[in-house]
């Protein structure tokens, strides 16, 4: 019952967002025919009519949407105005860069963020805690691109540890090349995750069952792992999921600065060249990516805290 409702909500979200995205493109200034034909000398009435028919531009708005949506359901997102290539192929060739960048950043912000949060919760009130809080607060206040530029000038230009741009060859090459972009992408998230971790753990530390565990001689390390950290996982996983979902749609700036050919730079490129089918497909990908991650989090949470399924279940 709950699963059905959730599924219904997802379908509805997809329908509405696809409609809004399509309508947005439809309303965007400029006649697609002009971009499709390109050279003004070719603008003969016959040519215009042919192009309009090929791209269904002669149909009313609603039928255009329905044609697009029906094709999407069959896995066909149309073809790019610019590349004369299927949009799904185009996205397929760009996705790996973005996904590996986000995965790398995800590993970084989860591992480092949680670690810093745990350390600062366990050292609450000490200089270490103050240092971590100070540095992470500072980190959240710097925009992505500033971090990116600083990283490039220090580690790529000055120290020459990393190349300035490009995604790199092979697995290790890619990891090496994606290191600076991933750090730039992850820095703000590390700060947020470490603060959520610290806050949740501090709240958990003072609960009765933690004192009870201490009262029967559980070592502090085991008390932290089995009670304090264990019970903080729900909020931590939720926060990491939200950040990750946002990141899947938020690589534009970092990809731009580091010259990575991912989805983000494709989006910018497509907007600049009025490549509407590509823009539509990417926006829809972002909606779907966000939805998939948040649904995953919703599925994981009850496994971490059985009270949740009791509350939201039948």
């Amino acid at each position: 019952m709950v699963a059905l409702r959730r599924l219904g909500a997802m379908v509805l979200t997809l329908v509405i967002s696809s409609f809004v995205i399509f309508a947005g493109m439809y309303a965007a200034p400029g006649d697609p025919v002009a971009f499709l034909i390109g050279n003004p000398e070719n603008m003969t009435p016959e040519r215009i009519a042919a192009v309009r028919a090929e791209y269904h531009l002669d149909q009313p708005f609603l039928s255009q949407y329905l044609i697009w949506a029906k094709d999407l359901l069959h896995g066909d997102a149309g073809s790019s105005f610019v590349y004369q290539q299927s949009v799904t192929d185009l996205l397929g060739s760009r996705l790996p860069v973005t996904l590996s960048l986000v995965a790398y950043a995800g590993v970084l912000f989860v591992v480092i963020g949680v670690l810093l949060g745990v350390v600062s919760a366990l050292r609450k009130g000490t200089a270490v805690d103050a240092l971590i809080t100070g540095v992470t607060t500072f980190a959240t206040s710097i925009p992505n691109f500033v971090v990116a530029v600083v990283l490039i000038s220090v580690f790529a230009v000055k120290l020459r540890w990393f190349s300035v741009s490009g995604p790199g060859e092979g697995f290790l090459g890619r990891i090496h090349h994606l290191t600076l972009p991933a750090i730039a992408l992850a820095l703000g998230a590390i700060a947020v995750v470490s603060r959520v971790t610290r806050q949740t753990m501090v709240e958990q530390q003072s609960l009765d069952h933690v004192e009870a565990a201490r009262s029967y001689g559980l070592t502090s390390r085991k008390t932290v792992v089995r009670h304090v950290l264990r019970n903080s996982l729900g909020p931590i996983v939720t926060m990491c999921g939200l950040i990750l979902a946002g990141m899947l749609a938020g690589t534009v700036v970092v990809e731009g600065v580091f010259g990575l050919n991912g989805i983000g730079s494709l989006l910018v490129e497509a907007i600049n060249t009025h490549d509407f089918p590509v823009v539509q497909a990417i926006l829809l990908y972002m909606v779907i990516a966000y939805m998939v991650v948040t649904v995953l989090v919703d599925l994981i949470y009850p496994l971490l805290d059985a009270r949740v399924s009791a509350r939201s279940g039948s």
Partner: protein
Amino acid sequence: MSVLLEIEDLTLRVPAVEILRGISLQVATGETVGLVGESGSGKSSTARAALRLFPDEAQAGGRISVGGVDVLSAGDAAVQRIRAHDAAMIFQAPRTALNPVRRIGDSATERLVQVHGLDRKAARAKLLTLFEHVGLRDPESLLRKYPHQLSGGMLQRVVIAAALSIDPKLLLADEATSALDVTTQAEVLALLKRLRGERDLGVLFITHDLHLAAAYCDRVYVMREGLIVDHQPGATIFENPGNEYTRQLADAVPTLPAQDSTETGKVGSR
């Protein structure tokens, strides 16, 4: 009989509040000692102190010894040994004393498995026997349940069984039977009495119910505002209350152990 727990002139203060103002009491092996007083008088704080469990920023003075070890000055390892082997505490609010996100079986066997190093199977077997002793039905399925699926009375029996599972010498029972109905309370009290005979278990029995304490305990201490105001053998405390406050308590408390709000999950103050 040897002294298990000896508290001498214990003071405890957190900034701005003096919680305990010079408590002295003793519990010997095989002895059941009542600690009675209204809510907020410092009973729980006294019991916690025996295991060196203090609020943050608390300052303790005086002397506490458990099995001859000076709890306030001992090293961490010695205190750890006392907590693991010598003294077990049954916390006042069973619903919050159990980890809400872990199964009853995991929580209740944690001290046997993680502290005593028993294997999981042996720990479960031991716990199942104790579950039956405290009157829990269908103990096998209980192990797989979560705290929010059980009533306050069932949870209280779970924590009692868990505390007894390590065969402690000293039991610090903080309102341990107050969420139980009369029949179950009688069963649990009988079990504790039997352990006292069999294993020389010493019990510090904390309750707000003077009648229960008088009927069940060898000696009774009456506490008020961080002080011991009366100390009598259980048998005589009604005939000869040593203090006006004791008399008030005797008149105020209902004779039957009430099935209080803990049963529905709402738990009173410590």
